[in-house]
């Protein structure tokens, strides 16, 4: 993090204003140190040998030829892991290094430290592993019946949610089977870090991550060290989107550093990054919706199967979200939803922005459109008749007690005027610079989708964040282990401290495990609420202590004192002191902030499992070239339930950026896995939207209804933009083509071949 002082004479921006990022200047100057920029004079380079097979037994590993190479300092295998041989976010089921079997292509088998990356590559090639390939389990629908590929079995978790009258039947029924492909987070900054052995026998790890303390605990367990001897510091993070919630190179780096007694740096290549982190779960989803003739939902039935890949990661929480939110942000009196996440020999899947709600949103929104069609009703009107509101019950039985402006979100988006013109330049038609589209064939489509998910962690998880605030010589310093991954928490932390303390200068201490308690994960749209809440509470405690001390020292009534504009003043005007003068002796407070407790789901998937919910709508306008099956997304319009906007510029950045990932999943992004092998592990072959692919994103409305219990009334805003955007774009393509298109991403062949059929 960056220490930034506000220039004297300018009023520092407070909450609700577009304060600039404190790390903006170093980031544009090229001086911000990302994890891949770390350097130590004595450092070695590390590398990882990965399995070429999705499933195999390891007969033997011969490291001898690699050890013999000049410049090689260490070659380590599973036998060199001193502590727990496995790790995992929720289940410790993933080997640090594979010993007897490998369960996915790219699974780490050995690690090397050497004097140069070229030596590392040669050493990795010199290691001889004798594999006995076995038939991989690659079909998630076969996983439960197949022989277990892991001692923990092939079913990671099943939730069979049953709600309301199980005999309910609607007059109108629609059915569909939907599929979502595997999406990659595709952050720009590859996995990287630097481990430095310490004199106390421990290790200091500088790494890009989303959750320092849970990394620390997993690393320490694998190293067989007390957690205090493993110290993590956040290195500059080049994007995350869920892919940094699990360990990647953390334990490997520490093992190599401790073994060699030298600092060791490791940077994944892009290809290795595709193999080195979890992806968004591919999903197969069958649905049947029941409604009455007026379009009121009667019952939703669904069967969900998510492919968890070889290891559990956060799969059990992802399937909980997929199941809980499977019916969408609608009143559904009766539901039977069976959600299962299974183990296969495909690449492991885990957290990605939207976390289970993206997949089911794609399906439930397609169903709503299908139902509107069956009823002969406008699809927006059908949604309007069913949207949730405060006081309504979810299919989990939980009553929404917070804000739920779903109707407002829907109407603001659907009624917003469109600025989309017909393409004047062939560059703007589907196919772009290829100039392949016949303008007369191009068809335009338009559709709206709604989505929602939970904020913060659920199902009784003891969720908290810690922050320290210290004020000295008129300057506030905030210490919090919240991982800044690009979302702008550093900006908010300064804004909050200024708001509470009336102080201009706010410094941010580095995010690290040694100086402060856990901030929890930068995920689940939770840090504005959780770490924002911790910073607020710590600053409030400092304000309270400071004012009490001033009151006692000067004989003033404490209730009369306020902090504003770097001064302590009494409301009556008879006392005034400079903040610097009254803080020569510092005041400090550490606070651990908790959200309201939640409950586990019962055996019917019922319970008050979630803290809060956020809703968003997207309207997509697309042009489709039916001849080649190419799509140009022309315009996206969005509205979102945000509670309260704390930084308008950063809020818009989240809405635009999240929508771009949704556009990618709709029309181009898929990790293509064939027989358990990734076929497109590069940015040449895995496409993410460029500036020519992304349409303008019109923000129709940020709906501000302060959320009770949330610091400043603000809801997290990071994930909803990625939920309904994919569904809206694909629905617009259906509208343009009349095709069913039950799979995302929509591939050119899905359109062109269907169009070519007689």
């Amino acid at each position, binding site marked *: 993090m960056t220490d930034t002082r506000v220039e004297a004479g300018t009023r520092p921006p407070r909450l609700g204003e577009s304060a*600039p*990022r404190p790390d*903006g200047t170093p980031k544009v100057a090229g001086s911000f140190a990302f994890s891949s920029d770390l350097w130590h004079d004595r450092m070695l380079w590390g590398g990882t040998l990965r399995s070429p097979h999705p499933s195999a037994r390891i007969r033997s590993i011969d490291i001898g030829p690699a050890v013999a190479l000049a410049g090689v300092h260490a070659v380590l295998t599973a036998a060199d892991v001193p502590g727990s041989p496995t790790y995992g976010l929720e289940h410790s089921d993933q080997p640090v290094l594979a010993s007897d079997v490998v369960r996915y292509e790219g699974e780490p088998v050995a690690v090397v430290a050497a004097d140069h990356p070229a030596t590392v590559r040669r050493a990795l090639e010199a290691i001889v592993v004798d594999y006995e390939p076995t038939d991989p389990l690659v079909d998630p629908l076969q996983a439960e019946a197949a022989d277990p590929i892991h001692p923990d079995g092939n079913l990671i978790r099943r939730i069979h949610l049953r709600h309301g009258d199980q005999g309910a039947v609607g007059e109108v029924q629609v059915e569909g089977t939907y599929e979502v492909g595997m999406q990659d987070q595709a952050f720009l*900054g590859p996995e990287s870090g630097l481990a430095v052995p310490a004199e106390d026998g421990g290790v200091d790890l500088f790494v890009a991550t989303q959750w320092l303390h849970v990394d620390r605990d997993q690393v320490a367990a694998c190293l067989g060290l007390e957690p205090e001897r493993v110290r993590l510091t956040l290195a500059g993070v080049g*994007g995350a989107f869920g892919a940094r919630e699990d360990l990647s190179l953390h334990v490997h780096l520490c093992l190599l550093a401790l073994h060699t007694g030298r600092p060791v740096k490791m940077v994944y290549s892009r290809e290795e990054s595709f193999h080195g982190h979890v992806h968004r779960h591919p999903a197969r989803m069958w649905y049947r919706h029941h409604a009455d003739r007026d379009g009121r939902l009667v019952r939703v039935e669904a069967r969900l199967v998510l492919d968890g890949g070889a290891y559990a990661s956060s799969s059990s929480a992802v399937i909980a979200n997929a199941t809980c939110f499977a019916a969408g942000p609608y009143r559904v009196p009766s539901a039977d939803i069976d959600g299962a996440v299974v183990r296969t020999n495909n690449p492991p899947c885990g957290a990605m922005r939207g976390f289970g709600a993206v997949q089911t949103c794609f399906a439930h929104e397609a169903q709503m459109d299908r139902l509107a069609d069956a009823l002969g009703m406008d699809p927006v009107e059908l949604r309007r008749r069913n949207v949730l509101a405060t006081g309504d019950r979810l299919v989990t039985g939980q009553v929404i007690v917070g804000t739920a402006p779903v109707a407002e979100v829907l109407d603001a988006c659907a009624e917003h005027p469109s600025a989309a013109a017909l393409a004047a330049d062939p560059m703007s038609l589907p196919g772009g610079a290829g100039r392949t589209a016949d303008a007369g064939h191009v068809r335009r489509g338009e559709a709206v989708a709604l989505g929602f998910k939970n904020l913060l962690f659920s199902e009784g998880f003891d969720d908290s964040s810690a922050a320290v605030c210290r004020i000295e010589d008129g300057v506030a310093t905030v210490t919090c282990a919240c991982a800044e991954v690009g979302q702008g928490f550093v900006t908010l932390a300064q804004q909050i401290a200024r708001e509470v303390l009336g102080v201009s200068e706010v410094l941010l201490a580095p995010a690290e495990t040694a100086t402060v308690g856990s901030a929890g994960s930068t995920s689940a749209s939770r840090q504005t609420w959780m770490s924002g809440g911790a910073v607020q509470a710590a600053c409030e405690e400092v304000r309270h202590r400071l004012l009490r001390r001033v009151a006692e020292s000067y004989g003033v009534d404490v209730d009369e004192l306020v902090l504003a504009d770097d001064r302590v003043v009494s409301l009556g005007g008879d006392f005034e002191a400079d903040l610097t003068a009254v803080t020569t002796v510092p005041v400090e407070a550490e606070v651990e902030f908790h959200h309201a407790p939640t409950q586990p789901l019962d055996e019917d998937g019922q319970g008050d499992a979630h803290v809060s919910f956020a809703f968003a709508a997207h309207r997509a306008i697309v042009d489709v070239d039916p001849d080649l099956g190419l799509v140009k997304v022309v315009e996206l319009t969005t509205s979102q339930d945000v509670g309260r906007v704390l930084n308008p510029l950063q809020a818009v950045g989240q809405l635009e950026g999240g929508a771009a990932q949704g556009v990618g999943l709709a029309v181009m992004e898929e990790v293509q896995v064939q027989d358990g092998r990734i076929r497109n592990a590069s*940015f*040449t072959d895995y496409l993410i939207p460029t500036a020519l692919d992304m349409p303008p994103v019109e923000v129709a409305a940020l709906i501000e209804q302060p959320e009770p219990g949330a610091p400043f009334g603000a809801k997290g805003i990071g994930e909803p933009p990625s939920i309904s955007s994919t569904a809206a774009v694909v629905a617009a393509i259906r509208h343009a083509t009349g095709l069913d298109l039950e799979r995302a991403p929509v591939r050119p062949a899905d359109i062109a071949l269907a169009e070519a059929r007689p």
Partner: protein
Amino acid sequence: MSADPYVLRVNGRDHEVPDAHLGESLLWVLRERLGLPGSKNACEEGECGSCSVQVDGELVCSCLVLAASAVGREVITIEGLAPDGELADVQRAFVEAGAVQCGFCTPGLLMAVDTLLDADPSPDELTVREAISGNLCRCTGYGRILAAVEIAADLRREAS
């Protein structure tokens, strides 16, 4: 494998590069030998643009250019975009417009936008989109980046 020392002119300064293997990319030499890590490495195959620098005023992916081929040319990296130590117009515009989130793509984008505005002081939106379409950004969806280019174009026209 190491070649004779050669000299690279980077950001207006000559840097001797001793003991380098001739196959090293300009990106590697900038980052690992010259201590200029501002140019980023995100794909190593010229797809993401994070490593973009100017060689004799031309925008290139430094991961695809051999360092030794830049001998006798003027290389400008993100560290040299504002020679006087202040922020350049494009840099100020990116901060002001909220075009920076994680910031990993930012140095490459700034080099691309600087090159564009040198060639075309008043680009229309499609021209801008095409000019930066070789620079992948995963955080912003490009909206605030396009806004930043407008601000930067205004700043540069005012200054000229």
